[in-house]
């Protein structure tokens, strides 16, 4: 069983508590962390907290909204990458949560001073992708394309692995983050080559089944490489900035700033670059794009890499706030998915706004009924689906 529902990303409560005990530094599980925020994974689901309604004054209200927005930023990143992958490849990227966990745990390993297991996984996935790419291109291989494939699937991961060897034992936060992104990002491309490219012509349903398989496999590999213990990383910034009745942490500012940067980056990529437009074209009309020489395998590889990059970055951003286990990513990914669904799996702004809404709903429900937090968040999808199905008109099959 993966993604046990009681592993919660109990951000709002942890931050409420943080106000009382600030400044707080994250550490391994069991470090000075307020007891309510992190539930150890083998404990039974906790009893519902006190039933008496708590009064909400405006400070708490603001605080909850603030927490909701910060969490929502992470969900927005994930929702955007899910929309990207779905529109370009028709794949519902369930394993996106694993990229989140890999990002967090890889960085945590660097911080703890050991070489992360994902390096080995990167090499293995690269080798598997090499074989898959050779098989896919067997009729058209020439020396040049063979060289390009070898460079991408074998030399690149070897170079990244080499880089992890030459850096010092504890490379420091910035180098650790860069290495983490370098390790996880190409995994997206390799995953596409190995698991999805052979299914290029399959239906959405078959691709979904493949996604479930990939999710299970990557979660299992996560357990192998990182073990069952959870990890935290230090925050990107210890600063606590008073802002009226609130105290804004440097970490949450980093999260908002990087989310904004990613959104801006995606906007630039799609709006201004030819390759970004080629991805969009593939999403709009796959045959049309192929007739322009835009290969679906290239588009898939690229969108999966972007998704893996965004996933790893999200993991790096949440890791200081909550303990991440090898299977925590699933739940975070699922919330991004809820937001993406609300946006119809097609609209980037819709998905981003919905993600902030999901974050806020989560913040309020964990304050009022923390035991039912996940239930409330996931139930938010039902009225949306109802509304969508009521207002939807039969879609003409246009491609």
């Amino acid at each position, binding site marked *: 069983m993966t993604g046990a529902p009681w592993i919660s990303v109990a951000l709002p409560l942890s931050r409420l508590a943080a106000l009382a005990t600030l400044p707080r530094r994250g550490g391994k599980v069991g470090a000075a962390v307020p007891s309510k925020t992190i539930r150890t994974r083998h404990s039974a689901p906790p009893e519902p907290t006190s039933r008496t309604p708590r009064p909400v004054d405006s400070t708490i209200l603001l605080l909850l909204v603030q927490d909701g927005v910060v969490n929502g930023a992470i969900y927005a990143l994930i929702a955007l990458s899910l929309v990207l992958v779905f529109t370009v490849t028709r794949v519902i990227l369930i394993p996106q949560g694993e990229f989140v966990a890999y990002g967090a745990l890889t960085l945590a390993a660097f911080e703890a001073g050991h070489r992360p297991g994902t390096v080995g996984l990167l090499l293995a996935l690269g080798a598997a992708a090499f074989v898959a790419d050779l098989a896919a291109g067997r*009729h*058209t291989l020439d020396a040049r394309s063979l060289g390009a494939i070898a460079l991408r699937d074998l030399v690149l991961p070897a170079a990244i692995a080499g880089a992890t060897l030459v850096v010092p034992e504890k490379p420091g936060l910035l180098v650790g983050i860069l290495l983490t992104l370098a390790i996880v990002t190409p995994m997206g491309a390799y995953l596409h080559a190995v698991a999805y490219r052979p299914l290029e012509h399959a239906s959405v349903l078959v691709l979904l089944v493949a996604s479930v398989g990939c999710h299970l496999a990557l979660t299992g590999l996560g357990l192998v490489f990182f073990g069952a213990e959870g990890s935290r990383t230090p925050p990107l910034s210890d600063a606590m900035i008073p802002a009226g009745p609130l105290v804004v942490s440097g970490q949450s500012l980093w999260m908002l700033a990087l989310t904004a940067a990613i959104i801006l980056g995606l906007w630039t990529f799609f709006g201004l670059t*030819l390759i970004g*437009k*080629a991805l*969009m*074209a593939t999403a*709009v*009309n796959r*045959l*049309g*794009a*192929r*007739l*322009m*020489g*835009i*290969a679906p395998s290239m588009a898939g590889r690229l969108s999966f890499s972007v998704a893996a990059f965004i996933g790893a970055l999200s993991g790096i951003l949440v890791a200081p706030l909550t303990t991440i286990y090898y299977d925590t990513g699933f739940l975070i990914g699922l919330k991004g998915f809820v937001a993406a669904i609300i946006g119809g799996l097609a609209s980037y702004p819709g998905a981003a706004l919905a993600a902030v809404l999901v974050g806020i709903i989560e913040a309020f429900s964990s304050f009022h009924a923390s035991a039912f937090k996940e239930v409330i968040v996931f139930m938010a999808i039902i009225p949306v689906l109802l509304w969508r199905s009521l207002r939807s008109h039969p879609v003409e099959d246009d491609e």
Partner: protein
Amino acid sequence: MSALLDASGVTVCYGKIEAVRDVGLRVEPGQVVTVLGANGAGKTTLLSALMGVLPARGAVTFDGRPIGRLSIEARVGAGLGLIPERRELFSTMTVEDNLRLGAFRFGRRERGSLDGMFALFPRLKERRRQLAGTLSGGERQMLAMARALMGRPRLLMLDEPSLGLAPLIVAEVMRTVASLRDQGVSVLLVEQNARAALRVADYGYVLDGGAVVLEGPSRVLEADARVVETYLGVLAAETGAQEARAG
């Protein structure tokens, strides 16, 4: 002179039905070749197979190189281009983006040809910021043609480029086809408007029930009793009259 495109024994099946049966076809460099046939004769199926959109049996070489196993993208890279029957424009993207993507295979090297294309199709220049999906039918045809030309194909296959166009514009399309030949581009033209097609083409094939029933230089076909009867008869006479009125 060896053929640019040489196809032989091309057979395409939809399930058990053979929509194209044992078709052989050659296009010489700088030649305009037309494929005529009634509705459902297999013309679109044949072009799709030549482009790699549909799997086919038989041998196809392009510029002396077998391309039968290549993907669509690889054939585009080799210099084939297809304007499909349904055009497949990027409807939610602008006219200009559609055109730029037409030159995708050249990467960022392609800068100047956008202006050239606007010179050829001034109408598209006026509409460059408009979404392709909101263009009129005729404008959409122009965009499809311009987008394909942006890829500078050595052989351009057109599937009914005059579909739904006013007679004046049909003449314009045919002039564009003729000018392509002058630039050394070969053209494989599928048309319902047989008279217009034979006028511009050097050579023609007639498909019926998925097989080639007649082929020859267009002058010969134009005079062939069967062609006149089937394709240039009453209907074509009407079109001719329309063209005369319009001109």
